[in-house]
C-alpha cells in the first residue's frame, strides 16, 4: 500500500495543485508531515530506477479518488514505490515503520474480501493503526446517512479513510466532508484506482513496461469500475486499450475515452499483449443484457481456442472470477469464468494477479 505512504507525504504540495474546485484541497496542508517525509526520502533513495523520466517526490493530489487526473509521473512514482515495498513481504519480519502512529479507517459499505484484506495487510505491514469500519446495511436501515457516518469517522480523527461504496462519487462526498485523506477502494461503476494500480504493477513486472502495449479488456464494461480506472491509467501511461463486450454491456460513447471498442472478441484478442477478463456480475443478468450464461460464454468466454488464436502471451483472469450468471447447472459452470486451460494456453507467461 505504497499509495498510502505517498499520499501521506503529499499534503504540503497539494494546496496549490488542486485542479478541481473544492475546499478539501486545503485541508491536509496543515497536517504534520515531517516524519513521513523522512521515510519517503529513504524509500526514494532505495528504489532502483533505471528510467530517465521526470521524477516526482510526492503526489499532487490530497486524495486518491480515481486514476482520472493523475499524470504519468504520479503513476510511475506509485508503481516505483510499490516495487520497493514488494520486498518487505519476503522478509521474516514483514513490517516497516512508514505509517507508524497513523490511523487508517477501512470503511467498507460493500462486501469485499480481497480488497479489504489487501488494504489491511498493507496497513499492518506499514505499521499503521488500522480500524475496520463496516456498518453495512444495518446503519442504512437505521436511517444513518453517509453524512452521519462521515461525521462519526471524522470524530475518530483518522489520517486516512479507505472507502468502498456502491455509489459512484461516494469518496468525493467523503472528501468534501472529512479532513482525512481519502482512498477510493471502489465506488459504484466509477473507479477502482488501487485495482488499476495493482494491474499496472503486475503488467509492468511481467512485461517490463506499459507504454505501447495493447491491452484487451473483455467482459462487463458497463458496470465495471475496474475498466474505467484501467482505461485512465493505461491511456495515461501510453498503452493502447481495446474494450470488448456485447453492445448491451457497453457504456455509450466509451470510445471518447480514447479506447477502441468492439463487440467481436476475436478482434479484441488480435495482437493483444495483455488480456483482462472482467467478471460478469451476477446481479447484471437481471437487467436482460444477455439471454443466458451459456450464450454469453459461447460469445465472450475466453476459450482455449480463442486464447490460442489470439496468440497472446499473457492472459489473466480478473480476480473474483466466480462471478456470475444464472443457474449452476452442471456443464454450464465453466461459463462463470475463463477456462483454466485457456490461461495455460497463454503459454509460460500466463499469470494471475490477485
Amino acid at each position: 500500500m505504497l499509495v498510502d505512504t505517498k499520499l501521506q507525504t503529499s499534503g504540503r504540495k497539494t494546496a496549490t495543485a488542486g485542479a478541481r474546485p473544492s475546499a478539501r484541497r486545503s485541508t491536509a496542508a496543515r497536517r504534520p508531515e515531517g516524519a513521513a517525509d523522512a521515510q519517503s526520502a529513504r524509500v526514494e533513495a532505495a528504489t532502483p530506477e533505471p528510467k530517465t523520466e521526470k521524477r516526482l517526490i510526492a503526489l499532487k493530489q490530497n486524495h486518491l479518488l480515481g486514476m482520472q487526473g493523475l499524470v504519468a509521473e504520479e503513476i510511475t512514482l506509485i508503481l516505483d514505490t510499490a516495487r520497493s515495498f514488494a520486498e518487505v513481504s519476503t522478509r521474516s519480519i514483514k513490517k516497516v515503520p512508514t505509517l507508524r502512529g497513523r490511523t487508517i479507517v477501512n470503511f467498507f459499505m460493500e462486501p469485499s474480501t480481497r480488497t479489504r484484506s489487501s488494504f489491511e495487510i498493507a496497513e499492518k505491514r506499514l505499521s499503521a493503526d488500522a480500524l475496520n469500519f463496516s456498518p453495512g446495511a444495518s446503519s442504512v436501515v437505521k436511517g444513518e446517512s453517509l453524512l452521519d457516518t462521515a461525521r462519526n469517522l471524522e470524530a475518530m480523527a483518522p489520517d486516512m479513510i479507505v472507502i468502498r461504496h456502491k455509489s459512484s462519487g461516494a469518496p468525493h462526498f467523503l472528501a468534501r466532508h472529512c479532513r482525512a485523506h481519502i482512498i477510493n477502494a471502489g465506488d459504484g461503476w466509477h473507479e477502482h484506482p488501487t485495482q488499476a494500480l495493482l494491474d499496472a504493477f503486475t503488467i509492468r513486472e511481467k512485461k517490463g513496461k506499459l507504454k505501447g502495449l495493447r491491452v484487451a479488456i473483455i467482459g462487463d464494461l458497463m458496470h465495471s469500475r475496474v475498466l474505467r480506472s484501467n482505461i485512465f491509467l493505461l491511456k495515461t501511461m501510453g498503452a493502447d486499450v481495446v474494450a470488448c463486450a456485447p453492445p448491451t454491456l457497453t457504456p455509450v460513447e466509451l470510445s471518447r475515452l480514447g479506447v477502441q471498442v468492439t463487440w467481436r472478441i476475436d478482434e479484441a484478442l488480435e495482437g493483444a499483449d495483455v488480456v483482462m477478463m472482467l467478471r460478469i456480475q451476477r446481479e447484471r443478468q437481471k437487467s436482460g443484457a444477455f439471454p443466458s450464461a451459456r450464450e454469453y460464454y459461447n460469445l465472450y468466454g475466453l476459450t482455449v481456442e480463442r486464447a490460442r488464436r489470439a496468440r497472446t502471451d499473457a492472459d489473466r483472469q480478473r480476480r473474483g472470477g466466480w462471478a456470475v450468471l444464472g443457474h449452476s447447472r452442471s456443464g454450464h459452470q465453466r461459463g462463470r469464468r475463463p477456462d483454466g486451460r485457456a490461461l495455460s494456453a497463454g503459454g509460460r507467461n500466463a499469470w494471475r494477479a490477485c
Partner: protein
Amino acid sequence: MASLLIKGGRVIDPATGTDALLDLLVVDGRIAERRPARPGKGASGERGVVPAGTKVLEAAGHWVCPGFVDMHVHLREPGQEHKESVETGTRAAAAGGFTSIACMPNTEPWNDGLSVTEYIVAEARRKGAVNVFPIGCVSKGGRGEELAEIGDMARSGAVAVSDDGQPVANTYLLRMAMEYTKIFGIPLIDHCEDRDLSAGGAMHEGYVSTMLGLQGIPAAAEEVAVAADLAVAQLTQGRLHVAHLSTRGSLEKVRQAKREGLRVTCEVTPHHLVLTDQAVADSDFDPNTKMNPPLRGEQDRQALIEGLRDGTIDAVASDHAPHHTDEKLQEFDEAPFGIIGLETSVPLIMDRFVRQGVITPARFVELMSVNPARILGLRKGTLAVGADADVTIIDPELERKVDVAQFRSKSRNSPFHGWTLRGWPVATVVAGQLVHEQRAAATR
C-alpha cells in the same frame, strides 16, 4: 382607495405592443392609467389626477413588465412542509419576481380532488405572497390508473392537470384525460418520460455518465414519451403542454407538431438552458446537479436556446423542486431529483440570454409572463388599462451574487450558489400591493 404610481420605467408589455417610458397608475389592484413618463416630477406635480396618498415606486432605469408567471412550481404543501410551504414558496416567488405561480399536485396526499385543491387555495389566500394556481392530478393518487375528479378541481380553482413527477404512461388514460379536460378548457401538462428506458438512471446518458460510472437516462426516454403524447394529442385534438422539455429530439417533435396545427405548447427550465451534464463532473458529483429530466448535452442545450429564439418554446418555468439539505446531502444516486429555481430564474435568463442579445426584452416577457398566463388561461400577462396590477420590475444593470443563504425558500438546493449574475428583479407588485422590494430606498 389604495393607489400606487410606478414612475418612469420602461414598460415592456408585448400584449399591447408597448415598449416605452411610461408612468403606470394603479388603483384598487388594477391598472388605472398609463401615460408618458415625465422625468423629475413627483406625484403631486403630475398632470393627471393622482389620488391622495398615492405611493410612488420610482422605476427610472428599470423594466416594468406584466407580472411573471412560473407555471411549474412544487410548493410541497400539504405533506412535505420541511421542504417548502405555500407561505415560503410564495415569498420565494415574490423575491424572484413572480406574481403568479402554478403548483404541481405531487404533494402528500396528491392534489387529486376537491379537498386538497381547496386547501391550497385557502392557504394561499391566508399566507400567500403571490397568486397561487393549483394544478390538479390527471389520475387518482397520481397512480396513472383512473381519472381524478378533474371537474371538482377545476371548479375550485385548478388551472391545469398533471401527474407531474410521474408521466402519464398509460396512453388510454392519456386519451381519456385529453378528451375529458376539453369540458373545462384546461391543458394537460405531461412530464414526458418512458420509465422503462430511464429506470435506475441518475443523470443524462452520454460521455459524462460513462466517464463517471453513473447510470444514464437517455434522451430517448423523453422523446419516446413526447412522440406518444403528440400522437394522442393528434388523435384527441386536446390541449397538451410538455413540461420541462430538455432534448433536441423532443423540441424537434414539438416544432413539427406545431407546424401541423396541434394544440401543443412546451416549457423549458433555466437550468437546462444554462447547464449541461458536464456540471455533474465539474462539481464532483454534487447532487444539486441532479434533476429529472437530467442536465443534457451541449447539443441539446444549443437546440433549446434556438427554441427560445424561434418561438417553439412557449414558456420558461423553473420546476422549483425544494428538498431539505439532509435529503440532498447524500450519495449522488441516492439523492432525490430536483433543484429550486424561483429565486434564480429571472437573473439567469436575463444574464445569459436577454443581456447577451439572444432574445429581445419583449420575447423575454412573453416567455415569462404572456405565454404561461395564456396557456393556463389566466387573466394575466398584460399591463393594459383595466388589467390586474401584477407587475414585475427588473433592474437590467443590477449585478449580484447568488447566495442561497439569502433565499426565502425553505430549501437551499441550487447549483447556482456563488454565481454572479446581472439583471435582477427589484420589485414585485401583486394586485397593486408591493410584495417584494430589493432596494429599501425605492419608495417614498
